[in-house]
């Protein structure tokens, strides 16, 4: 309340200040001059090619307006589109459950174990997917480190190792990289929840599962939704990791198909139609994200 009042006063002051001191016209256009280069870069090098992917997807090889690219895309790649949706949705789901559990643990626990997990879990956030791809290639390969380890524990028959260069390995890598990012965001939200709510729930006999589902998750819903959105959208668009892990196999993700379409066939029409499908996959969450960021008042 007091803060609000202070802000209003400050805004009021600044308006008077600018009006009184700088009547020159350049102050009126200064905001636009300063923002112009950044907007131009995004318009030319992002928005134009972004919109081009829509209209190019409707231009056939012969250069006429048609649905031929979509017909071909659905004929050749409908399974890959479903695969992309399935594996990203599944990875996001696993990462969400895992990260909520870890975040709850970190919120409610003390001691050296919790403290060290609280520091160590962040590591994967900082690694790029191209490094993670190489890491998972050594770790998950049929003759890789994980299979060796499991064979040592007699959990896996060494003659018949686990085949993980498929949706399982993809999910493992996705979760390895993104669950820590989700923990960071969700834990931040949990820490905003005052401990008294948790104590109150405990005092009326709530057990841990109830505290999680009745207090922590509902009070933290917007943060969790933002985390889910950012992770799902980034996974649908992730190229390097699927390309390096399962690039030569089938099924693959949309991003891998796009690369093949462009590099082997020079077929931009079908590549763009595939791109539009990847936009459709994220569209609901992407719109939610943009709207909630706009509502949030931007930078707070």
């Amino acid at each position, binding site marked *: 309340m007091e803060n609000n009042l202070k802000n209003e006063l400050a805004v009021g002051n600044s308006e008077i200040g600018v009006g009184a001191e700088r009547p020159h016209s350049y102050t009126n256009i200064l905001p636009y001059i300063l923002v112009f280069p950044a907007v131009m870069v995004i318009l030319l090098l992002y928005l134009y090619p972004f919109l081009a992917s829509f209209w190019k997807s409707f231009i056939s090889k012969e250069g006429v307006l048609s649905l031929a690219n979509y017909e071909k895309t659905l004929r050749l790649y409908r399974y890959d589109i479903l695969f992309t949706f399935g594996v990203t949705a599944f990875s996001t789901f696993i990462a969400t459950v895992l990260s909520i559990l870890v975040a709850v643990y970190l919120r409610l626990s003390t001691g050296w174990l919790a403290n060290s997990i609280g520091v160590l879990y962040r590591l994967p956030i900082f690694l790029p997917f191209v490094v993670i791809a190489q890491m998972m290639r050594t770790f998950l390969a049929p003759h890789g480190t994980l299979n060796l380890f499991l064979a040592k524990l007699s959990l896996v028959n060494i003659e018949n190792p686990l085949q993980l260069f498929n949706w399982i390995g993809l999910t493992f890598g996705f979760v390895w990289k993104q669950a820590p990012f989700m923990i960071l965001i969700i834990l931040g939200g949990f820490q905003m929840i005052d401990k008294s709510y948790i104590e109150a729930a405990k005092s009326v006999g709530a057990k841990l599962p109830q505290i999680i589902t009745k207090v922590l998750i509902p009070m933290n819903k917007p943060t969790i939704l933002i985390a889910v959105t950012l992770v799902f959208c980034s996974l649908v668009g992730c190229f390097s990791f699927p390309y390096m892990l399962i690039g030569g196999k089938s099924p693959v993700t949309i991003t891998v198909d796009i690369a093949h379409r462009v590099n082997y066939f020079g077929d931009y029409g079908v590549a763009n139609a595939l791109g539009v499908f*990847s936009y459709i996959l994220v569209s609901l969450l992407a719109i939610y994200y943009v709207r909630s960021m706009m509502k949030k008042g931007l930078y707070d």
Partner: protein
Amino acid sequence: MHKSRFRKAVEIIIFSVFIFFLFAPLLSLGIWSVALRWYWPNTLPQKIGFDYWLQALGITKSLTLGAVNVIPAFLLSLGIAIIVVIVTMAIAIPAGYSLAKLKIPALLKGIILILFLLPRAFPQQPVFINLMFMFNKIGLTGTVFGVILVHVVVGLVFAVWITASTFSSIPPELEEAARSVGASRLKAFLKVTLPISTPGLIASAVFVFLTSMDEFTGTFFIGIPFVTTLPMTLYSASGSNIQFASVIAILLLIPSILFMIVIQKFLKAEHLGGIGG
């Protein structure tokens, strides 16, 4: 008493599983980078050594390992990243300042902000292939300049948000106070706002630096085959030479971890997801 001991045991088991899945892939990378001979199904390599490291760092020049000197690729990545940071920050600081501090009509501001949110929400790869199509026409594909442009776009989206949120966290009274004693707007900015914002701006610059060092998708379409940055070298090696690729992967993750540990407290959690997508 009994119950708490049971809880502790469960906690330690979960902790061990957590540590295993967190570090085993990293350890795997480390072991492969020094494995000279590793016959299946031995648990550890029979022969270890730094041959691939020496080769990658250009200290030895053997023709039999199939590994090349990656110092030129590293220097290329470094040079591109430095130029990208300078260009991006030169564009992002004024834009961030304008969006956070100056008066722009609400509708226009909304449109600008949506423009900077779209690249974070929608997959970027289709954008890059159309950029490649555009660049093909004007001869920018396969050039360092073309790659720099792509990296600027990727970094700018985050840099504008981070600089805007840095500037908006500074109370307007400070700059007003400077101006009320006769300082010009520029002088008030340079003497008051800029020094206070330095940590946030450095964090933003480091962030842009890392997105450029790690950038894969844009470089893959715009740069290949002539612009071989470090991630591209890793990509080419990963299919054929697992030890060499592991060495490059470790070389790439060192700056990411070092820098991010230093700057993460200056960044909002949401931005951290932008690294190395």
